[in-house]
């Protein structure tokens, strides 16, 4: 088991380096550097330009900048944002809880609805319900996030007035951030109305962000269940006279869950990617919105650090899923 984990962990190192290199190169391939973007058409004198480039280390050869960056990151130094002059790590830690809260909530939404829907669709294969679930999940899977988000806002927030348009909390409340998770912070402050407000603010972004994972979970659960339901031991279970609910709940579902758990783990990447758009629509002060602004301002350290840290969390979750999978399914860990 230990060897299995070590092999998996060692595979992370090249991934990590690759990501660092890609982010580093990609942002530099985008035309315009941070100073050019800042000065716009008024321009800047060559002396001032040279001075700023020197101060930011942009006058060094690229390989040198890259090596310096990797060296600093290995020492836990992600640099300082060129715009706000705060350490990138501090900014990330301030904003990440908002993204995480949204992503977890979307995951919960996707699982709580997707799992039962998938099971029912499999059990009632070929029924109207089955076709309905599959049709809706296909639609959900292909839904453009921006359009979907605006549609929900216009309908639920503007026309019906049921949900707030955007933000994390009603402006009436001012909660000093403790954990960065609004639901927890409002409870810790004893502000129950604020907690309700935070919940209400979560509804639409959760639906928008959770739609794609919901579709994926529903479809995956359905196909995994269908496969398991055709197995001999299910027939045996039925033959033993077990009730339908027992057969499905105890025998079928447990085996069908293995691929579903993997898929849920893999959705973390999708969720963080989707969060970039969802946060922009719902003015959600998380990592996504921060990264978009960093691209516009060519804030190299913020962008590199942000992408690297997000990638790290995705890698960590995937690693965890891999390991869990090995624990759940002995065939995997003995395969190598």
């Amino acid at each position, binding site marked *: 088991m230990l060897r299995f984990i070590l092999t998996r962990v060692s595979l992370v190192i090249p991934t990590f380096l690759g990501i660092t290199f890609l982010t580093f190169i990609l942002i530099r391939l985008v*035309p*315009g*550097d941070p100073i*050019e*973007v*800042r*000065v*716009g*058409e*008024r*321009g*800047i*004198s060559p002396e*001032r330009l040279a001075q*700023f480039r020197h101060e930011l280390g942009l006058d060094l050869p690229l390989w040198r900048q890259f090596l310096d960056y990797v060296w600093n990151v290995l020492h836990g130094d992600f640099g300082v944002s*060129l*715009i*706000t*002059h705060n350490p990138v790590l501090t*900014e990330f830690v*301030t*904003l990440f809880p908002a993204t995480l809260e949204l992503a977890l909530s979307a995951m919960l939404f996707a699982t709580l609805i997707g799992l039962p829907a998938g099971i029912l669709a499999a059990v009632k294969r070929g029924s109207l319900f089955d076709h309905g679930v599959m049709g809706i999940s296909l639609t959900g899977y292909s839904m453009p996030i921006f359009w979907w988000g*605006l549609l929900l*806002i*216009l309908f639920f*927030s*503007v026309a019906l*007035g049921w949900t*707030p*348009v*955007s*933000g*994390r909390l*009603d*402006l*009436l*409340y*001012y909660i000093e*951030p403790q954990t960065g998770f609004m639901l927890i912070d409002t409870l810790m402050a004893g502000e129950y109305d604020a907690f309700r407000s935070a919940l209400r603010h979560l509804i639409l972004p959760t639906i928008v962000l959770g739609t794609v994972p919901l579709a994926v979970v529903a479809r995956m659960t359905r196909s995994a269940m269908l496969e398991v339901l055709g197995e001999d031991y299910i027939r045996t279970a039925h033959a033993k006279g077990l009730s339908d609910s027992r057969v499905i709940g105890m025998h079928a579902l447990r085996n069908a869950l293995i691929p579903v758990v993997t898929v849920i783990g893999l959705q973390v990447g999708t969720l963080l990617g989707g969060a970039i758009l969802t946060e*922009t*629509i*719902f*003015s959600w*002060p*998380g990592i996504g*919105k*921060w990264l*978009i*602004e960093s691209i516009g301002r060519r804030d190299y350290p913020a962008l590199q650090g942000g992408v690297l840290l997000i990638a790290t969390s995705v890698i960590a979750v995937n690693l965890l899923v891999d390991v869990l999978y090995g624990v759940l399914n002995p065939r995997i860990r003995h395969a190598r």
Partner: protein
Amino acid sequence: MKRILLGAGLGMAAALALAAPAQAAKTLVYCSEGSPENFTPALNTTGTSWDAALPVINTLVQFERGGTKVVPGLAESWTISDDGLVYTFKLRAGVKWHSNNDFKPTRDLNADDVIWSIERQWKKEHPFHKVSGGAYDYFADMAMPSLLKSVEKVDALTVKITLNAIEAPFLANVAMPFMGIHSAEYAEAMLKKGTPEKVDQAPIGTGPFQFVAYQKDAVIRFKAFDAFWGGKQAIDNLVFAITPDAAVRLAKLKAGECHVMSYPNPADLDAMKKDASINVQEQEGLNVGYLAFNTLKKPFDDVKVRRAVSMAIDKKAIVDAVYQGAGSPAKNPIPPTMWSYNKAIEDYPYDQERAKKLLAEAGYPNGFETDLWAMPVSRPYNPNAKRVAEMMQADLAKVGIKSKVVQYEWGEYRKRMQQGEQQMGMLGWTGDNGDPDNFLYTLLGCEAARPGGNNLSKWCNKEFDSLVVQAKRTNDIAARTKLYEQAQVIFKEEAPWYTIAHSVVYMGLNKAVQGYKMDPFGIHYFDGLDLKQ
């Protein structure tokens, strides 16, 4: 709506520990388009950051609300020496500073604060010069380092600034956000505490609103400053709800989650104007988009060719198709909101027959070939230069001029244009200090026609130049207005540019908001407002 007006008092009052009775508190929510970089205007170049700093920070002199005329600010009066070199500012007495948890001011505004605010940007050895990045772009752009000779304290409430050369727009420079006055006492306290960057992140100023809190990328909170030298504001709390997407800002305005929104999508304007709960205000931006003819290169060294091209292009079609309501056709190089704008000038008509005749007179009866540079980015004064170029290309082809559209990456584009590599090319300008000098001298004067300078036509007309230089050397506004009006006549006759458009900026306001005035500089000010309950 109800939610903001009725509920606002309670929550905010509790949150901000205000003593006022809950139902009396009025909170104005502004849906802003982005996050500020910090709250020190001198460090920033974006309107978004200035919007967030200017409720707190004042300047010595300021622009009249809604205009470009300079009026008293923290200085109640000023004198200019006869030689035009010495500016003596008399500060208001008894101007109070804000306070926060880390700082309680022990004194009112005095000359030390003014000197601190200027020297931070000016003197490399100043303890705050390098704090928060230390890029004072506007201080450099407005040539302050070469312009300033000395800044001295005459007495506690008098500051004397001596210049190296006469510069009439200097007073307008002093009204710009980068010349905001910060508390020297606060800076010293923060330096002692080892947190100098707090000066830029939790600002202390003398303005109508004090800074309460900023939650990154989400909300900025201010409350009205009771001891503001201009009198307490009618609204009690000012909140910026940072909302980057224009469609969502509009949704929030409609749902009553904010009272004022910036930059609506031009496509939404019709619907907004029809909405009974929304007021739409509009104003021309302080900018101009233009096509510069390189007068050093053939065939644009001939004024007839420049005039012919000016008549061959259908300006109205371009403004309608590309700006979609967010632009108005330009005839002068300065925007109409600026003083000395010459209304009497007539633009070249769209007349292809006359254009052909002029070309024939210039010796190009069959037209010619030229490049046509188009910038790669969207700017307020020209949202889609590529599209504008294509429309120009089609119009020019009709009079026999074959043009090839050229594009470079933005920084490269600007540099090459400044070097004068193009035959003709598009760019634009957004005004800094509201002074015509900032357009006419900066973009069209002989000094800027050097390679690398901002005069992209490389056009050096002695008559024009002597007018704008003369206008720089006098402080008499009436005399300057005359000079600039004359200069615009020469500009039009000589046609170094084909003026395309000025942007039109819109604001969406809830009908309850009273007294909002748009600012020609594009800054959003929130003093002097009220909410009708």
